[in-house]
């Protein structure tokens, strides 16, 4: 493939982004998607020590909820064997939120402060310690940094003529991004229906080869840029490993 590799952001926020990647094959695009889901390590609670739990829920249920609280994971600061201790101590009447979790490491904090853990009534108390470890989504879904990762082909839209005056108009739904000449247009602008953008015209839609629009959302443990970069690094490391293995 001769086309040059290129990335262009269409939407860019801390936790979600939509961007166009040109010059990659479908297999490579899918490799990046899978790496973002399963190969980027994040921190998550893996063991909980209950000191007191007089709430209405079993220890195991609360532990499961704690495991799903996303924790910020600074890049290249932790190894696979590192453990970060967190603690929680809430007395009722109150609701224990993820923001009540106290971390032993300033770099590791709950990514979201308002995840409810348990509603405590008068006289109930929850006190616990938890260990967070680094692992990948391949190991357990709680370690999945990319929670919503997908891609679509970029689609080129061209007008091919006028629509007949008394012709029935069916909606032409396309989701993602279309290319009009050199311009990129998010389909949200016309409610994903091409007949809204081209009311009286016939259009031809075709996939643009080797151009994919990624929609990525993270759980808050890291930014989209970081997730994408680390996913590509993991692909690169595996390719190097394969190269070493076959060159022996």
């Amino acid at each position, binding site marked *: 493939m001769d086309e040059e590799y290129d990335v262009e952001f269409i939407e860019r926020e801390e936790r979600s982004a939509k961007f166009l990647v040109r010059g990659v094959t479908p297999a490579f695009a899918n490799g990046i998607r899978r790496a973002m889901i399963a190969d980027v390590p994040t921190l*998550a*609670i*893996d*063991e*909980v*020590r*209950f*000191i*007191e*739990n*007089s709430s209405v829920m079993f*220890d*195991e249920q609360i*532990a*499961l909820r*704690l*495991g799903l609280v996303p924790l910020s994971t600074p890049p290249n600061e932790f190894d696979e064997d590192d453990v970060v201790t967190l603690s929680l101590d809430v007395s009722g009447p109150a609701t224990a939120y993820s923001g009540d979790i106290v971390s032993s490491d300033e770099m590791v904090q709950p990514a979201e402060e308002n995840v409810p853990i348990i509603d405590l009534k008068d006289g109930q108390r929850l006190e616990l310690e938890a260990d967070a470890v680094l692992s990948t989504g391949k190991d*357990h879904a*709680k370690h999945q940094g990319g929670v919503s990762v997908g891609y679509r082909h970029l689609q080129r839209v061209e007008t091919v003529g006028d629509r007949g005056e008394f012709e029935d108009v069916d909606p032409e739904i396309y989701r993602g991004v279309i290319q009009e000449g050199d311009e990129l247009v998010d389909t949200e602008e016309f409610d994903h229906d091409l007949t809204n953008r081209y009311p009286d015209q016939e259009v031809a839609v075709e996939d643009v080869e080797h151009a994919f629009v990624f929609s990525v959302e993270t759980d808050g443990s890291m930014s989209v840029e970081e997730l994408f970069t680390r996913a590509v690094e993991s692909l690169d490391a595996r390719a190097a490993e394969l190269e070493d293995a076959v060159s022996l």
Partner: protein
Amino acid sequence: MSYKCSRCKRDVSLDGYGGVRCPYCGHRVLLKERSQDVKTVPVQ
């Protein structure tokens, strides 16, 4: 094993002779107290 009477809320310890009954109020519903040990739970 320590229990708590669900009616009078007093601590009750059972022996082999009195059966399941609160010695203070005679109520037959006793609640088992949670152990003071720290319980470790893996998150899976």
